[in-house]
Protein backbone atom coordinates (compact mmCIF):
# COMPACT_ATOMS: atom_id res chain seq x y z
CA UNK A 1 0.00 0.00 0.00
CA UNK A 2 1.40 3.35 -0.91
CA UNK A 3 1.52 6.29 1.40
CA UNK A 4 -1.06 8.03 -0.74
CA UNK A 5 -3.64 5.26 -0.40
CA UNK A 6 -2.96 4.99 3.31
CA UNK A 7 -3.55 8.70 3.63
CA UNK A 8 -6.76 8.44 1.63
CA UNK A 9 -7.98 5.75 3.90
CA UNK A 10 -7.10 7.73 6.97
CA UNK A 11 -8.84 10.86 5.76
CA UNK A 12 -11.93 9.21 4.35
CA UNK A 13 -15.19 10.42 5.79
CA UNK A 14 -13.97 11.55 9.11
CA UNK A 15 -12.49 14.57 10.73
CA UNK A 16 -8.95 13.28 10.36
CA UNK A 17 -7.35 16.43 11.60
CA UNK A 18 -9.09 15.85 14.91
CA UNK A 19 -7.25 12.56 15.29
CA UNK A 20 -3.98 14.37 14.76
CA UNK A 21 -4.82 17.05 17.29
CA UNK A 22 -5.82 14.37 19.79
CA UNK A 23 -2.60 12.44 19.23
CA UNK A 24 -0.59 15.63 19.61
CA UNK A 25 -2.10 16.53 22.97
CA UNK A 26 -1.91 12.95 24.18
CA UNK A 27 1.80 12.80 23.47
CA UNK A 28 2.39 16.28 24.85
CA UNK A 29 0.71 15.53 28.17
CA UNK A 30 2.35 12.12 28.41
CA UNK A 31 5.79 13.67 27.86
CA UNK A 32 5.19 16.35 30.44
CA UNK A 33 4.05 13.73 32.94
CA UNK A 34 7.15 11.61 32.34
CA UNK A 35 9.29 14.70 32.51
CA UNK A 36 7.78 15.59 35.85
CA UNK A 37 8.93 12.27 37.25
CA UNK A 38 12.35 12.60 35.65
CA UNK A 39 12.81 16.13 36.91
CA UNK A 40 12.33 14.94 40.46
CA UNK A 41 15.50 12.94 40.11
CA UNK A 42 17.17 15.83 38.33
CA UNK A 43 17.29 14.46 34.80
CA UNK A 44 14.33 16.13 33.14
CA UNK A 45 14.23 17.44 29.60
CA UNK A 46 14.83 21.13 30.04
CA UNK A 47 12.92 22.56 27.05
CA UNK A 48 9.76 20.76 28.05
CA UNK A 49 7.51 21.73 30.89
CA UNK A 50 7.88 19.51 33.90
CA UNK A 51 4.80 20.80 35.65
CA UNK A 52 2.81 18.36 37.68
CA UNK A 53 -0.37 17.09 36.07
CA UNK A 54 -2.40 18.83 38.72
CA UNK A 55 -1.01 22.12 37.57
CA UNK A 56 -2.06 21.35 34.01
CA UNK A 57 -5.59 20.28 34.78
CA UNK A 58 -8.28 22.82 33.95
CA UNK A 59 -10.70 20.94 36.18
CA UNK A 60 -8.42 21.76 39.09
CA UNK A 61 -9.42 25.36 38.52
CA UNK A 62 -13.08 24.44 38.81
CA UNK A 63 -12.79 22.51 42.07
CA UNK A 64 -10.77 25.22 43.69
CA UNK A 65 -13.27 27.96 42.80
CA UNK A 66 -15.09 27.73 46.09
CA UNK A 67 -11.96 27.99 48.17
CA UNK A 68 -10.61 30.76 45.99
CA UNK A 69 -13.81 32.76 46.38
CA UNK A 70 -13.90 32.36 50.15
CA UNK A 71 -10.25 32.51 51.16
CA UNK A 72 -8.38 33.72 48.10
CA UNK A 73 -6.12 30.68 48.13
CA UNK A 74 -5.96 27.56 46.02
CA UNK A 75 -6.63 24.01 47.03
CA UNK A 76 -3.40 22.09 47.71
CA UNK A 77 -1.51 21.17 44.52
CA UNK A 78 -3.56 23.54 42.39
CA UNK A 79 -1.81 26.58 41.02
CA UNK A 80 -2.46 29.64 38.92
CA UNK A 81 -1.90 27.59 35.79
CA UNK A 82 -4.96 25.44 36.46
CA UNK A 83 -6.97 28.59 36.78
CA UNK A 84 -5.73 29.98 33.50
CA UNK A 85 -6.41 26.72 31.70
CA UNK A 86 -9.89 26.67 33.16
CA UNK A 87 -10.56 30.12 31.78
CA UNK A 88 -9.18 29.17 28.36
CA UNK A 89 -11.28 26.01 28.40
CA UNK A 90 -14.39 28.00 29.22
CA UNK A 91 -13.61 30.50 26.49
CA UNK A 92 -13.26 27.68 23.98
CA UNK A 93 -16.48 26.13 25.24
CA UNK A 94 -18.46 29.33 24.97
CA UNK A 95 -17.26 29.70 21.40
CA UNK A 96 -17.22 26.13 20.14
CA UNK A 97 -18.72 23.88 22.80
CA UNK A 98 -16.73 21.23 24.68
CA UNK A 99 -13.89 21.02 22.14
CA UNK A 100 -11.58 20.27 25.05
CA UNK A 101 -13.39 16.92 25.32
CA UNK A 102 -13.60 16.15 21.64
CA UNK A 103 -10.20 17.40 20.57
CA UNK A 104 -7.83 17.75 23.48
CA UNK A 105 -8.57 15.59 26.52
CA UNK A 106 -6.19 12.59 26.48
CA UNK A 107 -8.60 10.51 28.52
CA UNK A 108 -11.26 11.04 25.87
CA UNK A 109 -8.70 10.13 23.23
CA UNK A 110 -7.64 6.87 24.79
CA UNK A 111 -11.27 5.85 25.18
CA UNK A 112 -11.75 6.47 21.49
CA UNK A 113 -8.70 4.38 20.68
CA UNK A 114 -10.00 1.44 22.68
CA UNK A 115 -13.39 2.09 21.09
CA UNK A 116 -11.89 1.49 17.66
CA UNK A 117 -11.19 -2.07 18.72
CA UNK A 118 -14.75 -2.34 20.03
CA UNK A 119 -16.12 -1.12 16.74
CA UNK A 120 -14.11 -3.76 14.86
CA UNK A 121 -15.45 -6.43 17.19
CA UNK A 122 -19.10 -5.50 17.35
CA UNK A 123 -19.61 -3.50 14.15
CA UNK A 124 -22.95 -1.72 14.31
CA UNK A 125 -23.86 -3.05 17.71
CA UNK A 126 -20.96 -1.12 19.13
CA UNK A 127 -22.01 1.82 21.25
CA UNK A 128 -25.61 0.52 21.34
CA UNK A 129 -25.43 -1.92 24.22
CA UNK A 130 -26.84 0.20 27.01
CA UNK A 131 -30.67 0.18 26.93
CA UNK A 132 -31.94 3.65 26.03
CA UNK A 133 -33.91 4.14 29.26
CA UNK A 134 -31.00 3.24 31.49
CA UNK A 135 -28.68 5.32 29.36
CA UNK A 136 -30.90 8.38 29.69
CA UNK A 137 -30.82 8.12 33.48
CA UNK A 138 -27.12 7.35 33.70
CA UNK A 139 -26.24 10.42 31.72
CA UNK A 140 -27.24 12.56 34.68
CA UNK A 141 -24.73 10.75 36.85
CA UNK A 142 -21.86 13.01 35.91
CA UNK A 143 -23.64 15.92 37.53
CA UNK A 144 -23.84 13.85 40.69
CA UNK A 145 -20.10 13.23 40.48
CA UNK A 146 -19.52 16.92 39.91
CA UNK A 147 -21.56 17.91 42.94
CA UNK A 148 -19.75 15.35 45.07
CA UNK A 149 -16.28 16.44 43.96
CA UNK A 150 -16.96 20.13 44.45
CA UNK A 151 -18.50 19.52 47.84
CA UNK A 152 -15.74 17.22 49.07
CA UNK A 153 -13.00 19.54 47.84
CA UNK A 154 -14.55 22.52 49.54
CA UNK A 155 -15.06 20.55 52.74
CA UNK A 156 -11.57 19.10 52.90
CA UNK A 157 -9.48 21.70 51.05
CA UNK A 158 -7.52 18.88 49.47
CA UNK A 159 -7.60 17.52 45.98
CA UNK A 160 -9.94 14.66 46.85
CA UNK A 161 -10.62 13.74 43.25
CA UNK A 162 -6.98 12.86 42.49
CA UNK A 163 -7.57 9.62 44.40
CA UNK A 164 -10.17 8.53 41.87
CA UNK A 165 -9.28 10.42 38.75
CA UNK A 166 -8.60 8.00 35.88
CA UNK A 167 -6.90 10.77 33.93
CA UNK A 168 -4.37 11.32 36.66
CA UNK A 169 -3.83 7.57 36.97
CA UNK A 170 -3.33 7.19 33.25
CA UNK A 171 -0.30 9.44 33.29
CA UNK A 172 1.08 8.41 36.64
CA UNK A 173 0.69 4.66 36.69
CA UNK A 174 4.45 4.39 37.16
CA UNK A 175 4.61 6.58 40.24
CA UNK A 176 3.69 5.89 43.82
CA UNK A 177 1.22 8.76 43.81
CA UNK A 178 -1.41 6.57 42.19
CA UNK A 179 -4.29 5.44 44.36
CA UNK A 180 -6.04 2.09 44.01
CA UNK A 181 -9.37 3.83 43.41
CA UNK A 182 -8.05 5.63 40.37
CA UNK A 183 -6.51 2.48 38.94
CA UNK A 184 -9.75 0.53 39.27
CA UNK A 185 -11.77 3.31 37.67
CA UNK A 186 -9.30 3.66 34.81
CA UNK A 187 -9.39 -0.10 34.22
CA UNK A 188 -13.18 -0.15 34.21
CA UNK A 189 -13.30 2.84 31.88
CA UNK A 190 -10.96 1.28 29.35
CA UNK A 191 -12.72 -2.08 29.52
CA UNK A 192 -16.17 -0.61 29.00
CA UNK A 193 -14.81 1.50 26.16
CA UNK A 194 -14.87 -1.75 24.22
CA UNK A 195 -18.66 -1.65 24.31
CA UNK A 196 -19.59 1.99 24.75
CA UNK A 197 -17.91 4.97 23.17
CA UNK A 198 -16.44 7.29 25.82
CA UNK A 199 -18.16 5.73 28.83
CA UNK A 200 -16.31 7.95 31.29
CA UNK A 201 -17.30 11.09 29.41
CA UNK A 202 -20.93 10.06 29.12
CA UNK A 203 -21.58 8.88 32.62
CA UNK A 204 -18.95 10.09 35.02
CA UNK A 205 -16.69 12.95 34.01
CA UNK A 206 -17.31 15.98 36.24
CA UNK A 207 -15.36 18.27 33.96
CA UNK A 208 -17.32 17.08 30.93
CA UNK A 209 -20.42 17.90 32.95
CA UNK A 210 -19.28 21.50 33.39
CA UNK A 211 -18.18 21.96 29.79
CA UNK A 212 -21.33 20.25 28.50
CA UNK A 213 -23.44 23.11 29.79
CA UNK A 214 -21.86 25.32 27.16
CA UNK A 215 -23.98 23.48 24.58
CA UNK A 216 -26.94 25.48 25.80
CA UNK A 217 -25.49 28.79 24.69
CA UNK A 218 -22.35 28.27 22.61
CA UNK A 219 -21.63 30.62 19.72
CA UNK A 220 -20.78 28.05 17.05
CA UNK A 221 -23.39 25.32 16.93
CA UNK A 222 -24.09 22.13 15.07
CA UNK A 223 -27.03 22.95 12.81
CA UNK A 224 -29.02 20.65 10.56
CA UNK A 225 -30.68 22.09 7.50
CA UNK A 226 -34.12 20.49 7.53
CA UNK A 227 -34.75 21.38 3.90
CA UNK A 228 -31.91 19.36 2.43
CA UNK A 229 -31.69 16.59 5.05
CA UNK A 230 -32.32 13.10 3.60
CA UNK A 231 -33.07 11.69 7.05
CA UNK A 232 -30.72 8.79 6.43
CA UNK A 233 -29.44 9.08 10.01
CA UNK A 234 -25.80 8.93 9.03
CA UNK A 235 -25.17 11.64 11.60
CA UNK A 236 -26.91 9.68 14.36
CA UNK A 237 -24.77 6.64 13.66
CA UNK A 238 -21.60 8.69 13.57
CA UNK A 239 -22.19 10.55 16.80
CA UNK A 240 -19.98 9.08 19.52
CA UNK A 241 -22.31 10.49 22.14
CA UNK A 242 -25.44 8.90 20.57
CA UNK A 243 -27.14 12.22 19.98
CA UNK A 244 -30.02 11.91 17.48
CA UNK A 245 -28.77 14.73 15.32
CA UNK A 246 -31.32 13.89 12.63
CA UNK A 247 -34.08 14.94 15.02
CA UNK A 248 -32.52 18.27 15.89
CA UNK A 249 -32.36 21.54 14.06
CA UNK A 250 -29.71 22.83 16.40
CA UNK A 251 -27.87 20.41 18.66
CA UNK A 252 -28.26 21.69 22.20
CA UNK A 253 -27.70 18.38 23.95
CA UNK A 254 -25.33 18.84 26.86
CA UNK A 255 -23.43 15.76 25.77
CA UNK A 256 -22.20 17.06 22.42
CA UNK A 257 -18.41 17.29 22.32
CA UNK A 258 -18.05 19.23 19.06
CA UNK A 259 -16.23 16.43 17.29
CA UNK A 260 -17.83 17.47 13.98
CA UNK A 261 -18.24 13.82 12.93
CA UNK A 262 -21.93 14.43 12.18
CA UNK A 263 -21.24 17.31 9.81
CA UNK A 264 -21.17 17.16 6.04
CA UNK A 265 -17.41 17.40 6.30
CA UNK A 266 -17.47 13.85 7.64
CA UNK A 267 -20.52 11.60 7.77
CA UNK A 268 -23.50 13.63 6.62
CA UNK A 269 -23.75 12.83 2.89
CA UNK A 270 -25.45 16.05 1.73
CA UNK A 271 -23.23 19.09 1.42
CA UNK A 272 -24.28 22.02 3.61
CA UNK A 273 -26.75 19.99 5.63
CA UNK A 274 -25.15 19.45 9.00
CA UNK A 275 -22.81 22.34 9.61
CA UNK A 276 -20.77 24.04 12.30
CA UNK A 277 -21.98 27.61 12.19
CA UNK A 278 -22.39 30.81 14.13
CA UNK A 279 -25.15 33.36 13.66
CA UNK A 280 -27.78 33.08 10.97
CA UNK A 281 -31.39 32.04 11.49
CA UNK A 282 -32.18 31.05 15.03
CA UNK A 283 -34.43 28.03 14.50
Amino acid at each position, binding site marked *: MTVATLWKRFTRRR*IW*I*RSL*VQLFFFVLIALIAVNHTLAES*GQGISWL*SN*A*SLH*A*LCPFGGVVTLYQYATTGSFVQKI*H*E*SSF*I*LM*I*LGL*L*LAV*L*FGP*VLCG*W*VCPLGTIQEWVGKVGRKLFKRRYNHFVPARLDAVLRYARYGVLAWVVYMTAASSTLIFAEYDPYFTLFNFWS*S*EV*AIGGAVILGLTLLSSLFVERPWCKYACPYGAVLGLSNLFRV*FRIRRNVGTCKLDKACDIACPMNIPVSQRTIVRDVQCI*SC*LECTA*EAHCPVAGTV*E*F*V*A*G*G*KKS
Partner: protein
Amino acid sequence: MIRLGSKWLTVLIVVILFGGVGLSSALGWWATENRKVPSRYTEGEAAGEYNPADLRGSYTLGEVSDLFGVPLPILAEAFELPATTDAASYQLKSLESLYPDASVEIGVESVRLFVAWYKGLPYEAQADTYLPASAVRILQSRPLSSAQQEYLASHSLGTPASTQVAETQQSTPLAQATSEGTHTPSDRTITGKTTFQQVLDWGVSQAQIEQVLGKEMPAPTTVIKDYATQQGQEFSTLKTALQALIDQVQP
Protein backbone atom coordinates in the same frame (compact mmCIF):
# COMPACT_ATOMS: atom_id res chain seq x y z
CA MET B 1 -23.64 33.36 9.23
CA ILE B 2 -20.13 32.03 9.71
CA ARG B 3 -19.25 28.48 8.77
CA LEU B 4 -16.31 26.81 10.43
CA GLY B 5 -14.52 23.75 9.12
CA SER B 6 -12.34 21.37 11.05
CA LYS B 7 -9.10 22.98 9.91
CA TRP B 8 -10.02 26.43 11.11
CA LEU B 9 -11.34 24.96 14.31
CA THR B 10 -7.96 23.28 14.82
CA VAL B 11 -6.15 26.55 14.27
CA LEU B 12 -8.41 28.37 16.71
CA ILE B 13 -8.08 25.70 19.40
CA VAL B 14 -4.31 25.69 19.17
CA VAL B 15 -4.06 29.46 19.04
CA ILE B 16 -6.37 30.01 21.97
CA LEU B 17 -4.74 27.36 24.17
CA PHE B 18 -1.09 28.07 23.43
CA GLY B 19 -1.65 31.77 22.90
CA GLY B 20 -3.42 31.96 26.22
CA VAL B 21 -0.66 30.13 28.01
CA GLY B 22 1.97 32.22 26.25
CA LEU B 23 0.22 35.46 27.05
CA SER B 24 -0.31 34.60 30.68
CA SER B 25 3.30 33.59 31.14
CA ALA B 26 4.41 36.80 29.48
CA LEU B 27 2.30 38.61 32.04
CA GLY B 28 3.81 36.49 34.78
CA TRP B 29 0.53 34.80 35.71
CA TRP B 30 1.48 31.34 34.62
CA ALA B 31 2.68 29.46 37.67
CA THR B 32 2.66 25.70 37.87
CA GLU B 33 4.16 25.66 41.30
CA ASN B 34 3.49 27.39 44.53
CA ARG B 35 5.12 30.73 44.76
CA LYS B 36 7.37 30.13 47.64
CA VAL B 37 6.86 32.95 50.02
CA PRO B 38 6.88 32.04 53.69
CA SER B 39 4.60 33.87 56.05
CA ARG B 40 6.01 36.69 58.15
CA TYR B 41 6.22 37.32 61.86
CA THR B 42 3.16 39.25 62.93
CA GLU B 43 4.36 40.49 66.30
CA GLY B 44 7.43 41.18 68.37
CA GLU B 45 10.71 42.70 67.28
CA ALA B 46 10.93 40.64 64.13
CA ALA B 47 7.43 41.61 62.93
CA GLY B 48 7.36 41.83 59.16
CA GLU B 49 10.29 39.48 58.61
CA TYR B 50 9.93 36.07 57.01
CA ASN B 51 9.26 33.40 59.57
CA PRO B 52 11.46 30.31 59.27
CA ALA B 53 8.71 28.31 60.97
CA ASP B 54 6.89 28.37 57.66
CA LEU B 55 9.70 26.67 55.72
CA ARG B 56 8.49 23.46 54.14
CA GLY B 57 10.06 20.39 52.62
CA SER B 58 9.59 21.63 49.08
CA TYR B 59 11.88 24.63 49.60
CA THR B 60 15.38 24.29 48.24
CA LEU B 61 18.46 25.46 50.08
CA GLY B 62 18.91 28.04 47.32
CA GLU B 63 15.49 29.49 48.06
CA VAL B 64 16.15 29.47 51.78
CA SER B 65 19.37 31.32 51.14
CA ASP B 66 17.62 33.94 48.98
CA LEU B 67 14.72 34.44 51.32
CA PHE B 68 16.63 34.61 54.57
CA GLY B 69 19.97 35.87 53.45
CA VAL B 70 21.95 32.98 54.80
CA PRO B 71 24.87 32.34 52.42
CA LEU B 72 24.42 29.11 50.50
CA PRO B 73 27.88 27.71 51.36
CA ILE B 74 27.05 28.16 55.04
CA LEU B 75 23.85 26.15 54.63
CA ALA B 76 25.66 23.45 52.71
CA GLU B 77 28.34 23.24 55.31
CA ALA B 78 25.93 23.29 58.21
CA PHE B 79 23.98 20.35 56.89
CA GLU B 80 27.03 18.57 55.60
CA LEU B 81 25.85 18.13 52.04
CA PRO B 82 28.12 15.87 50.03
CA ALA B 83 30.32 17.99 47.78
CA THR B 84 28.79 16.42 44.71
CA THR B 85 25.24 17.64 45.33
CA ASP B 86 23.96 20.91 43.98
CA ALA B 87 23.09 22.79 47.13
CA ALA B 88 20.97 25.43 45.40
CA SER B 89 18.41 22.90 44.17
CA TYR B 90 18.56 20.66 47.20
CA GLN B 91 15.10 20.28 48.72
CA LEU B 92 14.79 20.37 52.47
CA LYS B 93 12.75 17.20 52.51
CA SER B 94 15.72 15.31 51.09
CA LEU B 95 17.72 15.99 54.23
CA GLU B 96 15.90 13.21 56.01
CA SER B 97 17.39 10.71 53.58
CA LEU B 98 20.85 12.22 53.98
CA TYR B 99 20.86 11.02 57.57
CA PRO B 100 19.14 7.69 57.13
CA ASP B 101 20.59 5.94 60.13
CA ALA B 102 20.60 8.79 62.57
CA SER B 103 18.84 7.89 65.79
CA VAL B 104 17.35 11.35 65.82
CA GLU B 105 15.92 13.18 62.93
CA ILE B 106 17.61 15.89 60.92
CA GLY B 107 15.08 17.47 58.64
CA VAL B 108 13.04 20.53 57.84
CA GLU B 109 12.66 21.37 61.50
CA SER B 110 16.44 21.49 61.89
CA VAL B 111 16.71 23.95 59.01
CA ARG B 112 14.02 26.15 60.53
CA LEU B 113 15.91 26.25 63.80
CA PHE B 114 19.26 26.84 62.17
CA VAL B 115 18.06 29.67 59.96
CA ALA B 116 16.22 31.37 62.81
CA TRP B 117 19.11 31.33 65.22
CA TYR B 118 21.65 32.15 62.56
CA LYS B 119 19.66 35.28 61.74
CA GLY B 120 18.89 36.04 65.38
CA LEU B 121 15.18 35.57 64.82
CA PRO B 122 12.97 34.44 67.67
CA TYR B 123 12.31 30.74 67.46
CA GLU B 124 11.16 28.25 70.02
CA ALA B 125 13.25 25.10 69.69
CA GLN B 126 11.33 21.87 70.03
CA ALA B 127 12.93 19.48 72.47
CA ASP B 128 13.48 16.82 69.81
CA THR B 129 15.09 18.99 67.16
CA TYR B 130 18.71 18.16 66.51
CA LEU B 131 21.35 19.75 64.39
CA PRO B 132 24.40 18.30 62.69
CA ALA B 133 27.60 19.04 64.56
CA SER B 134 28.84 21.43 61.91
CA ALA B 135 25.62 23.45 62.11
CA VAL B 136 26.09 23.69 65.84
CA ARG B 137 29.66 24.85 65.33
CA ILE B 138 28.53 27.58 62.96
CA LEU B 139 25.81 28.74 65.32
CA GLN B 140 28.18 28.85 68.25
CA SER B 141 30.12 31.56 66.48
CA ARG B 142 26.99 33.74 66.36
CA PRO B 143 25.62 35.83 69.20
CA LEU B 144 23.37 33.49 71.14
CA SER B 145 21.65 33.59 74.49
CA SER B 146 22.91 31.25 77.16
CA ALA B 147 19.71 29.21 76.91
CA GLN B 148 20.38 28.73 73.23
CA GLN B 149 24.00 27.77 73.89
CA GLU B 150 22.86 25.21 76.38
CA TYR B 151 20.30 23.80 74.00
CA LEU B 152 22.86 23.43 71.24
CA ALA B 153 25.29 21.66 73.50
CA SER B 154 22.80 18.92 74.15
CA HIS B 155 21.23 18.76 70.69
CA SER B 156 24.20 18.21 68.49
CA LEU B 157 24.24 15.14 66.37
CA GLY B 158 27.66 13.63 66.87
CA THR B 159 30.64 15.42 68.36
CA PRO B 160 32.99 17.42 66.17
CA ALA B 161 35.61 14.72 66.64
CA SER B 162 33.38 12.03 65.28
CA THR B 163 32.36 14.07 62.26
CA GLN B 164 35.94 13.84 61.12
CA VAL B 165 35.43 10.13 60.86
CA ALA B 166 32.17 10.76 59.15
CA GLU B 167 33.53 13.11 56.56
CA THR B 168 35.24 10.24 54.85
CA GLN B 169 31.87 8.68 54.17
CA GLN B 170 30.30 11.11 51.83
CA SER B 171 26.74 9.98 51.33
CA THR B 172 25.85 9.23 54.91
CA PRO B 173 28.09 11.58 56.78
CA LEU B 174 26.76 10.74 60.19
CA ALA B 175 26.08 7.07 59.99
CA GLN B 176 28.80 6.33 62.46
CA ALA B 177 28.76 9.53 64.34
CA THR B 178 25.34 8.80 65.75
CA SER B 179 26.42 5.91 67.84
CA GLU B 180 28.80 8.23 69.61
CA GLY B 181 26.34 11.08 69.58
CA THR B 182 25.17 12.82 72.66
CA HIS B 183 21.70 11.48 72.40
CA THR B 184 20.19 8.05 72.82
CA PRO B 185 16.49 8.13 72.10
CA SER B 186 14.33 6.96 74.94
CA ASP B 187 11.94 4.13 74.37
CA ARG B 188 8.57 5.01 72.88
CA THR B 189 10.03 7.76 70.74
CA ILE B 190 9.89 7.58 66.97
CA THR B 191 13.27 7.92 65.33
CA GLY B 192 14.60 7.36 61.89
CA LYS B 193 14.79 3.65 62.60
CA THR B 194 11.39 3.02 64.11
CA THR B 195 9.16 0.57 62.28
CA PHE B 196 5.39 0.45 62.23
CA GLN B 197 5.61 -2.73 64.28
CA GLN B 198 7.20 -0.82 67.14
CA VAL B 199 4.44 1.74 67.07
CA LEU B 200 1.94 -1.12 67.24
CA ASP B 201 3.87 -2.62 70.14
CA TRP B 202 3.65 0.68 71.96
CA GLY B 203 -0.09 0.29 72.01
CA VAL B 204 -1.28 2.26 69.00
CA SER B 205 -3.84 0.39 66.91
CA GLN B 206 -3.47 -0.21 63.21
CA ALA B 207 -6.69 1.72 62.60
CA GLN B 208 -5.23 4.78 64.32
CA ILE B 209 -2.08 4.57 62.25
CA GLU B 210 -4.05 4.25 59.08
CA GLN B 211 -6.05 7.29 59.98
CA VAL B 212 -2.84 9.26 60.19
CA LEU B 213 -1.52 7.79 56.94
CA GLY B 214 -4.80 8.31 55.16
CA LYS B 215 -4.36 4.92 53.57
CA GLU B 216 -3.56 1.34 54.38
CA MET B 217 -0.60 0.64 56.61
CA PRO B 218 2.28 -1.06 54.80
CA ALA B 219 3.91 -4.23 56.11
CA PRO B 220 4.55 -3.72 59.86
CA THR B 221 8.27 -4.25 59.40
CA THR B 222 8.52 -1.17 57.20
CA VAL B 223 10.67 1.58 58.65
CA ILE B 224 8.46 4.64 59.00
CA LYS B 225 11.07 6.98 57.63
CA ASP B 226 11.55 4.84 54.53
CA TYR B 227 7.82 4.80 54.07
CA ALA B 228 7.69 8.61 54.25
CA THR B 229 10.53 8.99 51.77
CA GLN B 230 8.91 6.55 49.42
CA GLN B 231 5.55 8.34 49.64
CA GLY B 232 7.16 11.70 49.14
CA GLN B 233 5.87 12.84 52.52
CA GLU B 234 7.68 14.74 55.17
CA PHE B 235 8.87 12.35 57.82
CA SER B 236 8.72 15.02 60.50
CA THR B 237 5.00 15.64 59.96
CA LEU B 238 4.23 11.94 60.05
CA LYS B 239 6.41 11.49 63.08
CA THR B 240 4.70 14.24 65.04
CA ALA B 241 1.28 12.80 64.29
CA LEU B 242 2.27 9.25 65.25
CA GLN B 243 4.19 10.38 68.30
CA ALA B 244 1.07 12.15 69.53
CA LEU B 245 -0.78 8.83 69.34
CA ILE B 246 1.98 7.05 71.22
CA ASP B 247 2.00 9.67 73.92
CA GLN B 248 -1.73 9.21 74.39
CA VAL B 249 -1.48 5.55 75.35
CA GLN B 250 0.05 4.90 78.72
CA PRO B 251 2.69 2.18 78.85
